[in-house]
């Protein structure tokens, strides 16, 4: 069975640009969460979507937004990129909205120059 997939693998953008990252959850999983992982640190929660509705939002500015589609895939959008947005962006999926095993994808490495 395919795990969580993310695209693209790597991305280089310049300050001020916009980026869209994509995630496909494990088949049958209805929850998708997004995390940002800066080098040397643990992942930080950005958003959770469950059944296409936002269930949780972390402490990130409004430049970050996300959505979930009817097939449960998800997009993370970041506007007006800053150098500090350079990180590994991870997507995790779960069958449930809470209290269930979460499986991560390989991540998208975003570099902002």
């Amino acid at each position, binding site marked *: 069975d395919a795990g969580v997939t993310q695209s693209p693998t790597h991305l280089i953008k310049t300050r001020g640009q916009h980026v869209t990252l994509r995630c496909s959850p494990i088949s049958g999983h209805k929850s998708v969460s997004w995390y940002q992982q800066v080098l040397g*640190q*643990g*992942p930080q929660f950005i958003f959770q979507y*469950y059944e296409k509705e936002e269930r*949780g939002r972390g402490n990130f500015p409004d430049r970050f937004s996300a959505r979930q589609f009817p097939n449960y895939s998800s997009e993370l959008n970041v506007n007006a990129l800053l150098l500090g947005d350079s990180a590994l962006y991870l997507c*995790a999926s779960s069958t449930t909205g809470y209290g269930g095993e*979460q*499986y*991560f994808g390989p*991540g998208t490495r975003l570099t902002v120059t």
Partner: protein
Amino acid sequence: GESVGLHLPTLSVQEGDNSIINCAYSNSASDYFIWYKQESGKGPQFIIDIRSNMDKRQGQRVTVLLNKTVKHLSLQIAATQPGDSAVYFCAEEDGGATNKLIFGTGTLLAVQP
């Protein structure tokens, strides 16, 4: 805010020895915990989870112990192998009706042949 932290940032063990990775959490209301393994350049890999109504859970070569009295988690890896070398994170589900995980900074496990 609430956070999960690790006591030891780096752990070096000999191949074949047992490894113990420790983690402290601060939210006494948390009832679900997960250990992840992250290899360089990859997303976190689910290892084992435990709920607050349990003290111990065993998997293949791994055991997680939960001490709610002192808010402490540990991951024990039996007969550590070179392939176990990675960064290990404990994560705490934040409570409420979300999948939000709070991660510590991680422990680097280095297995010496």
